[in-house]
């Protein structure tokens, strides 16, 4: 007979499942890695040459933003996973396993974030290298920042998945959400060069905050601190909480029956 697994063990095993499926999708990994490398060494390199006339090193700026954008995109996938699991009946299986619905919710949200973190860690190290930054503690700190961002984005994705009941509609909304989150932020271009109407929104974007915090670690001349940290933590607090609450409510309310 079986023994009752501990809370942390259950969360870890749920996260492990996400990691196992990630490792088994090499084509997606390779595809996104190639895309990242082309964006960094072709797009950013060329635009950097154009922007050099303004006295602005776009390559360094973009390199950090590319990692933040990538983890944002990956963290959004968790909502699609939930739809797929519902469609394949996998949720029935997962919900029949010996742990509470709240642990399931936490495990899924964290799984989405850990999956993103593992995926972008080599990219972050590469970016640190090309930006000439070699402090392991700083790199670890930057990874912690994007992990926090990914947890919030996972929460946002789960929130949307729970609010929108139609998979096709969700695909459209999530694509728009991803586009807005990344594009209306200072991840891939500076706030000062954005249309004025978007600047206030981008200022409060968690993606902007995460990008600025990492840039402040990696790149000389960039500063970020309490304000960005508060925006990021507020975002995570709100959407991790909302995502968990909505998923929990949907499970308890019988949406997946």
């Amino acid at each position, binding site marked *: 007979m079986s023994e*009752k697994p501990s809370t942390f063990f259950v969360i870890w095993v749920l996260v492990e499942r996400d990691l196992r499926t990630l490792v088994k999708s090499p084509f997606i990994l390779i595809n996104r890695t190639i895309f990242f490398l082309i964006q960094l060494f072709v797009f950013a390199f060329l635009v950097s040459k154009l922007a050099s006339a303004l006295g602005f090193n776009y390559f360094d700026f973009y390199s950090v933003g590319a990692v933040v954008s990538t983890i944002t995109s990956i963290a959004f996938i968790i909502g699609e996973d939930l739809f797929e699991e519902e469609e394949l009946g996998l949720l029935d*299986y997962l919900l029949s396993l*010996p742990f509470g619905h709240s642990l399931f919710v936490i495990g899924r949200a964290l799984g989405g974030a850990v999956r993103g973190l593992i995926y972008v860690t080599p990219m972050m190290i590469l970016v640190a290298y090309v930006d000439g930054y070699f402090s392991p503690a700083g790199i670890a700190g930057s990874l912690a920042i994007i992990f926090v961002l990914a947890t919030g984005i996972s929460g946002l994705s789960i929130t949307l998945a729970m609010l929108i009941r139609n998979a096709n509609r969700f695909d459209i909304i999530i694509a728009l959400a991803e586009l807005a989150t990344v594009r209306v932020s200072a991840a891939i271009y500076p706030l000062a060069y954005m249309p004025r109407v978007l600047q206030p929104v981008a200022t409060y974007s968690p993606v902007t905050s995460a990008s600025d915090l990492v840039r402040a670690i990696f790149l000389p001349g960039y500063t970020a601190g309490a304000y960005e940290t508060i925006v990021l933590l507020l975002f995570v607090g709100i959407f991790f909480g909302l995502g968990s609450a909505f998923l929990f409510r949907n499970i308890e309310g019988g949406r997946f029956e």
Partner: protein
Amino acid sequence: MIEFKDVTKSFKGFEAVKDVTCEINDREIFGLLGPNGAGKTTLIMTMATVYRPTKGEVVVDGHSASLEPNRVKSLIGISFQDPKYDRILSAREILEWHGKVTGVEKSVRERRIDEILAKFGLTAEAKKRTWTLSGGTKKKIENAKVFVQRPRIAVFDEPTAYLDVPSRLMVWDMIEELRDDGSTVVLATNMMDEADRMSDRVGIMNRGEMVQVGEPARLRRSLSGRDIIEMKLDTVIPELTGEVSKVEEVKEARFEGDTLKIVLSNGRGLLPYLINVVSAKGGRVQSVNLKEPSLEDVFLYYTGMKLS
């Protein structure tokens, strides 16, 4: 013991399970019979706490499935009708993860996985992604999850669907072994031979209701006197069913293919007379089989439906 107390489960006004009350004893194989859509899977999912009963209560080993769902889930392992696992993963990874999440200790888990993969002849395919495997192999992996877990209550929903004969026999042996080791087994099936062979007791479901519960032999005996004559004819003569039904002791007559099946109440002695009736209508009898009621006949009797 598993107790279903007046359990009803509705989906958007449709009652998939209606007022089911029954008990499943410890260490028995309980066959849950019924045609597709009878409510077997819904009843199982309600017991497993995946669905919440709309009315009534399920109590597993003294724990309410509604009030203590985690306690109940820790006692149960389910092999689903359609395999439910990440098909991008291999059989070994699926079993490894399932064993881990259900709390099976590592060394025990690894030993059981090796044994079960070998038993099912899956050792060579254990590292392949499961979406590349055949339907039968996928079903074996679904069953294997429960055999690795060895839960207190093992639930198998159509465990031998898609399986070849040797694999069916092996799964049956393994389920019996589970019961002998102390597990209670709930076996949902629409295969009468499977239920008859495996079950200590059966529950017959139809249109969401539990219409009869009992030992297969007792249920068959409940139809004693209801002999069945199967007459294979050289050609189907539709009007024969009406003609034969005129005999008072004939409860039912119907053609199954070219075989005229006649259900009698206490009338074995009528066989020569019935042969004469058939002959008089131009039917030529090729063979006659007089048999006792089977579990399928029991099912037919209580539900009025033929199983697929």
